[in-house]
């Protein structure tokens, strides 16, 4: 029972991350994803200070706004001031993140619920214990119930706009030529990304969430040809890493969230080494 709950909680973070990751990796937007997951921090802190709670609704607004702000700031620096893209991203997210850390240190005070370590590394153990029980019936952890709607929305967005995403990722010029709003696709992705960053920052933290975004998708891209398969494989790899992470964590009795990212990293390495074999088998 406990194991299942741990795995489900971890998966509720990992599945949407690995789906979003596919879009990021195939369009080489990984650094932007990294930037957004860090840059939502000041948004979270402002929302926390204004509302005084860690309730998700004000936090989501704060994060969505900073998410958009980040994308615009990066674009602005790049296009208007002709700063190269990696420098623009690097500037934007480190600056916003540092701002967030400072805000925690100054305003949130010593005894507040927000602390830097939690924001950075997250704490899956605590979010597993944060269970929703109504009338002696257990409905799951708060993380699951918060991230489930996002996962469903994400799935709908991906399935409904599948062709659009394909064009957006691989041939945007053609897309704008036939009238697909490429910019809108990008904005939707950034919005979903910032929402995911907010909902999961307590469980996995901003540093590790990047690992969940990038690694399953990168592994899946190693051995799948089509976009649809990449989505499927990526989600599966996310789930597998959660299962392994939870059992390893219970076995060695150490923090689960860094373990999940480690398992993902290992799977990626394995995929790199195994792939040449597979190719040589196919060609022979």
């Amino acid at each position, binding site marked *: *029972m*406990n194991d299942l709950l*741990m795995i489900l909680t971890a998966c509720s973070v990992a599945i949407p991350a690995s789906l979003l990751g596919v879009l990021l990796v195939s369009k080489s937007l990984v650094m932007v994803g990294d930037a957004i997951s860090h840059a939502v921090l000041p948004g979270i802190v402002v929302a926390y200070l204004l509302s005084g709670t860690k309730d998700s609704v004000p936090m989501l607004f704060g994060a969505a706004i900073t998410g958009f702000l980040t994308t615009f700031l990066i674009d602005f620096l790049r296009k208007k001031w002709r700063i190269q893209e990696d420098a623009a991203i690097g500037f934007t997210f480190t600056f916003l993140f540092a701002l967030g850390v400072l805000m925690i240190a100054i305003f949130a005070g*010593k*005894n507040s*619920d927000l*602390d830097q*370590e*939690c924001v950075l590394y997250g*704490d899956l*153990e*605590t979010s*597993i*214990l*944060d*269970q929703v*029980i*109504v009338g*002696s*019936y*257990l*409905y*799951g952890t708060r993380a699951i119930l918060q991230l489930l709607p996002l996962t469903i929305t994400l799935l709908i967005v991906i399935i409904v706009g599948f062709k659009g995403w394909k064009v957006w990722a691989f041939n945007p010029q053609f897309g704008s030529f036939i009238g697909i709003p490429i910019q809108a696709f990008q904005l939707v992705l950034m919005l979903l990304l910032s929402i995911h960053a907010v909902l999961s920052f307590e469980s996995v933290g901003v540093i590790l969430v990047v690992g969940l975004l990038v690694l399953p998708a990168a592994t899946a891209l190693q051995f799948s040809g089509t976009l649809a398969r990449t989505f499927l494989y990526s989600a599966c790899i996310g789930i597998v890493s959660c299962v392994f992470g*939870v059992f390893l*964590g*219970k076995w060695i*009795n*150490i*923090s*689960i969230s860094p373990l999940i990212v480690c398992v993902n990293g290992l799977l990626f390495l394995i995929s790199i080494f195994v792939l040449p074999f597979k190719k040589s088998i196919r060609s022979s």
Partner: protein
Amino acid sequence: MKRFVYILICAGTVFSCKVKQTKENEKLIVCSTSITADCVRQVVGSKLTVKSLMGPGVDPHTYNPRPSDVVLLNDARLVVYTGFHLEGKMAELFSRLSERKEVISFQLDFPKQRILYTDGITPDPHVWFDTDSWVHGMNGVVDKLVELYPQYELEFRENFYRFMIQVQQKTKELKQKLSEIPEKQRVLITSHDAFHYFGRTFDIRVKALQGVSTSQEPGMRDVVDLVDFIVDHKVKAIFVENSVSPKALKSVLSSVERRGYHVKIGGTLFSDALGSKGSGADTYVGMLTHNVNSIKEGLK
């Protein structure tokens, strides 16, 4: 729309599951630190299982929950913790748990006028060294235990009474022991500021390198001040703590040496956690005795 709500409710019932306590979990009490665990154990005896999240020698200020803690806290019938923000970020976890579980802290019945404040507002969390108030603070915990297990009421109350007398007698005895050290030499220097209550209870002057929580690193100024103090007052010994790294204190030691004065390390004190089994400091009373003996030995 109506149909949609029905579907949601049905799905909810299918995917939810009933929370129930198994028979052995019914008797499981989980405490945060080894000190709280021992005090609760003294009361419940062998009737219930008492487990602590933080083992011997673990620093509670910077503790992060581990997977095994998740299982323990989830299964526990009652969760007991110290309070006063001793458990750092775990405090939030406990307050969230209290929405769905029986959770109680030693802070609840701790006499308010006995609390020491570090900077006017933040209470010093090392309250167990004020032995009388600490035992008084246990009242709330004992009441909760009796409420949850009314069948053992007589036994719990009797054990608690016995424990109270034992602690009172021991405190008197240890106070007597420490008062044999000449007053000028009666200075206790440790790595983190955990001994203010101890100093008040046992009448000894207290100084430390770090603040009340181990999460703050000592600054240059703190080290210099402490070195000056040791040299000026000709302090004979300084003490390391079992749950704190002795690194910073060692740097004080070498600085003192450079000033041409010798101070020794007077042994290990148990501040935030008890010792391991067989060390003699694996119970609350044993820990107090060990500390007083080491201090006396060091400052003699």
